[in-house]
């Protein structure tokens, strides 16, 4: 969009030549008949034309100083978006924040022509070199992008194939279920076995007793460790003690971690246990057993159908492309840790769960969020986001922890690729200062 301004300026054909104002705005910097000039954002403020770019801030909106930092005030409460136009002949015109003008830094990333330091002239024009960098970057990017797009198409095809396979499976199961269900004699449902009760109570009591004993032991150990954690001398760097305390802290965090769902899960565990006792072989006749078997089989079909349908209906991004990534696992050493990433499942840092896949970013599906990782000691649950950038393969670019226990992982993937526009390339281009 910015580049159309040049064209515009050419059409309007202004006579003013006010440094810092883009060609398209030059016509705004024409004096009134009396040699005065109105501030652009505050037309009621009239100043002498000569006060434009005189290094004194006269207009409340700063429009009189497009070519200096005179209006880049310290105490304005917010950030400033006032920009200076760099011609950048031989490259693309650019805009730079005015507070960067004449500060001794050659901000070639914005002004390759060095015009941001026009007072000292200390920054020679590097547009040629930078454009060279840009051209080779652009070439490389386009080439990689072309390959990546092929990869992306392949992934889309793969995703489609997986989908078709699932649909096929479900159809098949439904068919089997139907066939089996027709042979059902209806007697199998009555499978209650009264003899089981005594045994069950016995087993249950045993379990309860052993659970009680284990709990008591754990409580005792925890109280010992808690005492140690609260009272150890943190200044004594006994590695073993410190590590044990740290592990214990993690262990305790994990405990509280589980609090929320503990009751549910345990009761379901117990009920499952009961279920299994109910279904355990007893003195019943073989006929009943047979009926049970058939019944079980039918149930199994239904379960499978449910599972596959659920999988089929799971959201895999707008074009279903992420379906092809279900099995992709990336593992890499980064810093002092080994990271294991299963893109649509979870992220681990060594053995610690960083997060489980939760959702895609609602505006940009190349950003994935992971939540509910293990709890940090004295902090939140770990969480992460993965930002995918266009690339031929799946590789980790960087892992950072911008907020304690919140990770940001940058990763390449063909998924994030799309046809590149010139603007995309310009936005992604970074000047390599070490080559200038």
């Amino acid at each position, binding site marked *: 969009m910015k580049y159309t301004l040049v064209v515009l300026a050419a059409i309007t054909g202004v006579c003013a030549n006010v440094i810092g104002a883009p060609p398209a705005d030059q016509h705004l910097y024409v004096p009134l008949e009396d040699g005065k000039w109105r501030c652009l954002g505050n037309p009621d403020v009239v100043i002498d034309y000569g006060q434009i770019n005189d290094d004194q801030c006269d207009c409340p909106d700063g429009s009189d100083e497009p070519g200096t930092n005179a209006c*880049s*005030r310290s105490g304005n409460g917010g950030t400033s978006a006032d920009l200076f136009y760099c011609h950048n002949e031989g490259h693309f015109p650019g805009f730079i924040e005015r507070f960067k003008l004449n500060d001794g830094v050659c901000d070639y990333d914005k002004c390759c022509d060095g015009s941001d330091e026009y007072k000292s002239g200390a920054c020679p024009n590097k547009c040629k070199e930078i454009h060279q960098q840009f051209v080779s970057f652009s070439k490389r990017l386009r080439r990689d992008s072309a390959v990546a797009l092929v990869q992306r198409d392949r992934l889309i095809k793969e995703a489609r194939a997986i989908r078709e396979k699932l649909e096929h499976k479900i159809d098949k199961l439904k068919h089997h279920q139907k066939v089996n269900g027709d042979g059902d004699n209806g007697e199998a449902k009555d499978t209650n076995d009264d003899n089981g009760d005594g045994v069950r109570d016995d087993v249950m009591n045993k379990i309860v007793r052993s659970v009680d004993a284990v709990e008591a032991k754990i*409580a005792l150990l925890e109280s010992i460790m808690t005492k140690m954690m609260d009272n150890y001398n943190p*200044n004594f760097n006994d590695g073993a003690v410190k590590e044990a305390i740290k592990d214990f802290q993690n262990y305790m965090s994990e405990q509280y971690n589980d609090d929320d769902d503990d009751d549910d899960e345990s009761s379901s565990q117990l009920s499952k246990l009961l279920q299994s006792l109910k279904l355990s072989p007893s003195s019943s006749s073989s006929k009943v057993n047979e009926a049970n078997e058939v019944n079980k089989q039918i149930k199994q079909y239904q379960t499978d159908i449910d599972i596959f349908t659920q999988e089929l209906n799971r959201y895999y991004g707008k074009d279903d492309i992420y379906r092809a990534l279900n099995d992709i696992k990336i593992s890499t050493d980064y810093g002092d840790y080994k990271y294991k990433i299963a893109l649509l499942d979870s992220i681990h840092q060594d053995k610690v769960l960083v997060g489980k896949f939760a959702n895609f970013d609602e505006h940009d599906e190349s950003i994935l969020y992971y939540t509910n990782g293990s709890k940090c000691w004295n902090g939140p649950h770990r969480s992460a986001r993965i930002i995918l950038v266009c690339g031929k393969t799946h590789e980790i670019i960087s892992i950072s922890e911008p907020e*304690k226990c919140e990770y940001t992982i940058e990763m390449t993937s063909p998924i994030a690729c799309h046809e590149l526009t010139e603007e995309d390339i310009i936005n992604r281009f970074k000047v390599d200062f070490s080559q200038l």
Partner: protein
Amino acid sequence: MKVVVAFLALYVTIALGVKEELFKKCHENGFCHRNRHYGSHILEAHDWPYRINSTSLKTSAETSHIWLEILKTISHDKEIVLDLQLSLLNDDNLRVQVNERRSNDLKGVGSLTTHRFNGTGNWVLVDSVTEGKFKSIDASLKEKLGLKYGKYHSAELTYYPLTLKVYYKNQLQMTVNDKKFFNLEHYRTMEDNDMNMLPFELDFDMFKDSFKDSSKDTIPFGPESIGLDFTFNGYQHVYGIPEHADSLSLRDTTNSEPYRLFNIDLFEYEVGSTMPMYGAIPFLLAVKPTKVASGLFWLNSGDTFVDIDKTHLKGVSTHWMSENGIIDFIILVKESPEAINKAYGELSGFTPLPQLFALGYHQCRWNYNDQEDVLQVHENMDKYQIPYDTIWLDIEYADSKKYFTWNKKTFPDPRKMMLELDRTGRNLVIIVDPHFKTGYFVSNELMKQDLCVKDNENKILKAHCWPGESVYIDSLNPKATEYLTSKYQMSSKNTFMGGDDITNVHLWNDMNEPSVFDGPETTFFKDTIHYGRWEHRSIHNMYGMSYHNATFHALTNRLAQSSRNRPFVLTRSFFAGSQRTAAMWTGDNMSKWEYLKASIPMNMNQGIAGMPFSGSDVGGFFGNPSKELLTRWYQTGIWYAFFRAHAHIDSRRREPWIAGEPYTSIIRNAIRLRYRLLPTIYTTMQRTSVEGVPFMRPLFYSYPGNLDTYEIENEFYLGNSGLLIAPVLEEGVKEIIIVLPNVKEIYYDYTNGKMSLESYYGKSQIIKQVTLEDIPMFLEGGSIITEKQRYRRSSKLMINDPYTLIIAPNHDQGKASGQLYIDDYETYDYQNGKSAMIEFEASDKGISSTLIRGEGEEFKVTNHVEKVIVLNFTKQYDAKPLKQVVVNKQQVVEFEIVHNNHLVIKMPNTPMSQNWTIEYEYVESSSLHDEL
């Protein structure tokens, strides 16, 4: 299968707060316990063991030294002879030294040097100190000696009971040994101890240490403590003797723990405590309203306790007790606290003028995880348009905490990182502690070159710190400085420092108390052995200084040939003299309001004790500050001389943009205010570097006549700029009470650096409404400050920006004056005269600016003045309306009256390189008549 945990009620709490039981209280510390006991019993004695042998008087030919014998009577047939020496330093500072005569051959002390350690003065006093002459020595009386020295000083030494009285303009200021606490435990063995004890003396822990953690101390010399009391006659307030997290004015300790000076890594220190901390400066200032102030400089680097007794009408009395060494102290009496600071600086050195960046904003965290992280934070500062100058790396940068190495996985290309920071004028500070992990090249080299601290058996000491088992560099050995110099050398092979062209990397010395995780009181055993065959006991409080001194000299050597050659070193441990080579911070504070509050008296006491380049971790080190606390801490932190945000590794990220709005903008405004005031701040630091005045200046410095200012510790001045600051230090408050120290002067409300309609006169205190945005600030009538009001990314990039002057006319005559110091901000060329001091004068007639160049090479000032603001112009000069403003007698310039009151003059880019004037032309009263 998961087990149901029924024990959920077990609640995890984190034990916070200092482990007091790890540190000795006075009654657990042999010498302190014995001296306090001695003090409480000597009061009841009828005769005293110490007296001067009047026949022993000797003076040097040039009357610069006086020698006398002190006799300590043990029994009718046993006397111990001590040597007393009186001398003058820099003309009028009286130095007193007392030593015992010891044989070179003492039993059971191994190879240790046998005489008492007398080297503290050599470490502390600067080479330029001269010895003065007594004007007169009157020995005509048998019972006392009369001395006259300096312009207004005199002293009287009474032989029995032994006392020394010091007078200034014939007024008694100080009485030494007023309470007869003078005590020197002379050498004896355990076997003959009974024959060496005074009847009322206690023998507690003379030859052993019953404190559990230090019970292995062999105490080879037995008891050798010293004790002495000083009464500050007519004084109600004493200050200084940092480092303690306590009030500005020291409190009475007669029924509690004395202030202890013993450098330790006090983990999770508490506020309102006399416990020792990371550093020690045995310098005390006493101030009273009658145009006189006194200082006491106790030159002892061993474990020291100071009792403060405020229960006497005579004045504050103090009792000084040290574990060993000689009695060595200097008495300073001057006309003002400022003059004391100057005299103290002339003795122990001033803070050298740092590079400008060191006064900018420092962004630190334990830790920035990797190179990407560092550069991300760096980029975000610009993205959020928050100025900053320096980013810091704590211990995790190194491979397994082996200093002088980089963790190659997380920092693959440190040089590239340094260069990228340098591009926009940013600096990097890296930590290098004095402990070195065993088993790598640095510790191997130190062992091979015999540069390690030794245990009491003279074997290399191995103890635990961050990296695990480590050796400690014996930086008392001059060769240790040479070693560090080689490590920091400017060389292409020095990949640790980024190569031979990197000049934006500076250093941080932490854990140099020294911190020893498995040592008694978290430090060395006192019988650890140092270079010179001295026990650690003798030098403990100087070890930290010896290390940062060595670092400073090594870094000086590295940067010597560069265009930015003023080194920056931050230290946690310090002693008197540390100000010459390092800045300090107040260590590991907590993210709590009381620590924010305590930071002000702590930093003010640093300034009082001659080490004003100090600061506290903004945000608090341990824990997670609320957004409000973090914001208030930035608003306070911008006034620390050393302004750094820091956080513990377990705390959440808290770089300024994380808090979100409105906090981020308020924090940005605070940091930008700091940068805007850098011209005034740099000028303040320059004054400090030559005059020693505190950076955060207590109110009583300006108004010693006003006793109500003596305990104000929530307000302060920015040096002597006239800017009075009263930051908000409490949670959720909507108004604060502000003390205005001079009812006869105007205080212009300059909150957040903004012109205001409010000004105050004739009020000793006001109530001010405040919002979260507010940093209450006032310009005192009579002052002129300078600002650079344009935002830049770092201080280096502001160098060519124009100045704005803020003028605050005084009440009586509408006059004001101020100074601006400028140099190249980076090199030592100012020492050759390449600097400029600009003096501003203002009155109802106009304003003048006079440039005074340094003598020598010419310094080119390239800046302009863009704006001049005269506060309350209309109110102050209300006789006549202003007609026009003329610059340099020729140019009529634009002006504006804001708020119907303040005059704003837009300067025609007036160069600062020349003297300039502004003249006001008023509408003549006659023409006023005409118009009417």
